[in-house]
């Protein structure tokens, strides 16, 4: 039981990272970024190739491993950010310039997602490939009768750093202030001298960085595949809704909460494929009962 809770928490952390991307874009554009799963996928591939080229030999010292890991996080985050900005540039901005209806954004995003996914399949092949592991330590930490591996602790550390960073970015810095201003009222913000286009691009970049890092951790825990992003992204969206879409802290909490809710039932039914089924049922239930999520929708006001 406790091990399932732990599994839920650590998987949930990954969902939180992805959910932040959804929440940021939703807060600013009032739009679900359907192509976010491909940000995840490209981050995973970025991390995979970084590790593939740096981990030539398995016999490297701990310091080098830590450096490689930091490098992989930065690389996959950067790839995620670049892809997210590219999606914004090619699939959204031409429509925004024309003030197109929302339906066209959604369809364009689906098109972008399909294109990127199959482009990855074309370039990287259709078969899944195993990621080289930078974390080989057998160290595990025993909490409440469940062992937490080194991988989980690295994940916890990285997400904690990223959560702090994004919280600071959105609340304290100038970029964060302009993001919140655009989320509240884009037109007024542009009158106050905020460059709306570059703010939106920055939002995609920040969300893309988070998504890319999440992709790296998914890649490290399983294999890399061209459609690796789909299910985690769907569940992460559920997490974003659970926490209140548009609410960054809500997204962080929502991811972990969703992970726990999703994995605890698996303890009883022993059927891991039910995981997305449970997640989806939760999504429909939240939309029925409390569509604003547990913590309310608010990028413009609180976060």
């Amino acid at each position, binding site marked *: 039981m406790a091990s399932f809770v732990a599994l839920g928490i650590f998987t949930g952390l990954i969902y939180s990272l992805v959910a932040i991307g959804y929440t940021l874009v939703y807060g600013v554009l009032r739009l679900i970024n359907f192509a976010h799963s491909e940000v995840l996928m490209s981050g995973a591939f970025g991390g995979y190739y970084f590790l593939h080229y740096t981990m030539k030999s398995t016999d490297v010292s701990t310091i080098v491993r830590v450096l490689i890991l930091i490098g992989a996080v930065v690389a996959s985050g950067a790839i995620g950010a670049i892809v997210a900005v590219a999606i914004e540039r090619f699939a959204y901005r031409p429509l925004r310039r024309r003030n*197109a209806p929302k339906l066209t954004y959604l369809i364009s995003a689906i098109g972008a997602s399909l294109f990127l996914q199959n482009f990855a399949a074309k370039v990287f092949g259709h078969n899944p490939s195993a990621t080289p592991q930078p974390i080989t330590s057998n160290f595990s930490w025993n909490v409440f009768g469940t062992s937490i591996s080194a991988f989980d602790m690295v994940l916890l550390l990285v997400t904690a750093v990223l959560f702090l960073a994004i919280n600071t970015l959105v609340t304290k810095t100038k970029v964060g202030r302009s993001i919140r201003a655009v989320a509240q009222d884009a037109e007024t913000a542009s009158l106050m001298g905020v460059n709306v286009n570059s703010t939106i691009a920055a939002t995609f970049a920040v969300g893309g960085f988070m998504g890319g890092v999440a992709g790296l951790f998914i890649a490290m825990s399983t294999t890399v595949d061209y459609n690796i992003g789909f299910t985690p992204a769907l569940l992460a969206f559920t997490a974003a809704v659970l926490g209140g879409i548009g609410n960054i802290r809500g997204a962080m909490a929502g991811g972990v909460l969703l992970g726990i809710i999703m994995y605890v039932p698996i303890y009883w039914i022993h059927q891991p494929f039910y995981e997305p089924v449970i997640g989806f049922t939760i999504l429909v239930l939240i939309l029925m009962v409390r569509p604003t999520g547990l913590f309310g929708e608010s990028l413009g006001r609180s976060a």
Partner: protein
Amino acid sequence: MTGPESDLSTPLYTFQHALLSTHVVGFIIFGVALGAFMVYNKKVRAGILNSSWRKWITAIPTNLRAFIASSGLIQKAILAVVALVVALFIADFTGPYVAHKMAWNQVIGQLLHTRTYGYIAIIFWSLNTVRVRAQSRNSNAKAPSFFDATWVKILGGVLAGLFFAACADPWLPVRFSLSYFKWSGSSDDDFFHHWTTYLWTFCGLLVGVRAALQDRMQRRAVVQSRWKANHIKVSANTRFALYAGALFIAVESPKFIDAYWQETIFQQIGIFCLLAIGLNVVIGFAGLLDLGYVAFYALGAYTNAYFSGALPIHPPFTINTFFVIPIAILVAMLAGVILGLPTLRLSGDYLAIVTLGFGEIIYVLASNLTNVTDGAGGTGTAGSFSMNLPGIHFALSGFAIQDDLNFYYLLLAFIIPILFFFNSLNHSKVGRSWAAIREDETAARSLGINALKYKVMAFAIGASTSGVAGVLSSAKLGAIFPSDFALQVSITVVVLVIFGGMGSILGVLLGSAFIGWFLQYLTFHSFVGYNPADKSMWLGAILILTMIFRPQGMIPSKRRMREFKDAEANLGTADSLGSTTGGVT
């Protein structure tokens, strides 16, 4: 068969060959001539063509009309003979025999070919409409005649349907013979053993009822005309002729196509059309986005498999596939309402992601619930359509080409009524409510339109069509595999609707035909820089490019196109998804 005398099981004619060498050309020539005459007539009436040196030409239709309207028995007889001769010549020119054109025995010999009667019927029909027009202009108060009686109209419709069935029966030999109408055993030559006969008779009945109700419809037309203000103005007769022509081509042309294209058209494009028409209600009419459309298709397919005992869980009783269809409609609609009700109260993009999730869940369940669905290995043979009533023997049995044709007519029998139903729905109160919600939901609500009700309705109606498509295709394919219901299929259907033109039924049909053909081509060909494995990549590119350069689609609906223009000028929305921010550059 009414075309070239070849065996159906070995169709020798390619598509172009068939279109150019058979009586199809005859009907086209006739249609063009009729259209030219109508246009000419209209221009004369509008005073455009009434210059003095053309007066002798303008006199022709007037005289002709006066001639026909004067209703002498001898004149009518003369006219009948002339029409008959004209029909025989058209039949001769377009007939399958290349040699000995215009030889008198060949011309007379055309009487033996069933299609000749089709020409004769159309000529008389058009003469009759001219006569009716001439009369209605001459006298304002029309005395009720024998032909105005309701029962005459309905009976006439039924007889006309029977007649058309005889002319277009795909299984009858080309030579006309009275023995068709004999009630013999289960012979291929027996007219009353072909289910198309009953289909056309039913269509004839519908036309008859429509004619009988025409007075009422004309009264309502005053209200409707406001909503047709931007349409191309087509007279009822021309529109009827267009529909009849399209129907004729849809019925006749597949008989002459080679086996490869028969399979493509029947299995892929046909199902695509059905799916696209259904999704068009969601995207085009209601302005919502459904990304898990294939889930309802899967529900329909598995419902069929369940009721034919092909799944590991057995139903209490097995039922005929024809009766599974209403059940599948119910199941799909119910699923649509359950998904739609909680979701559609919120901003419309929630529906998109919830349906995306639902599609994935159905896929996951179908692949993994091995003790219910047989898992990824596929089910046993799902129920196929068969009907064995006195007079009607219909069965989809195996993989024969005859079977493909049977399936095609079955699809047609579903698609055509659905088309008419959706079209009238779109022009009814429901369709106007959808338009109002699309264009400005707040205003629509303030006028008392229950937006949630109409959105859920559109979603459920779209879902039910997908359910029907699932039953049909599972009956054709036999075994069902979860991989048939992957996300890719949903997105392909979105591409069909978007590319063709959302909201435009014609556009959606042509879009499905084109994309269906294109996908078939892309699957089996590779050329410079292209590899069949990248098919989906280019589909994605098509979606983005369509959205950027032509969001209204290739053949847009006039109203949808205007909505997009208005929305871009900040007047209302073109969908039911709420608005985005950041329209500032």
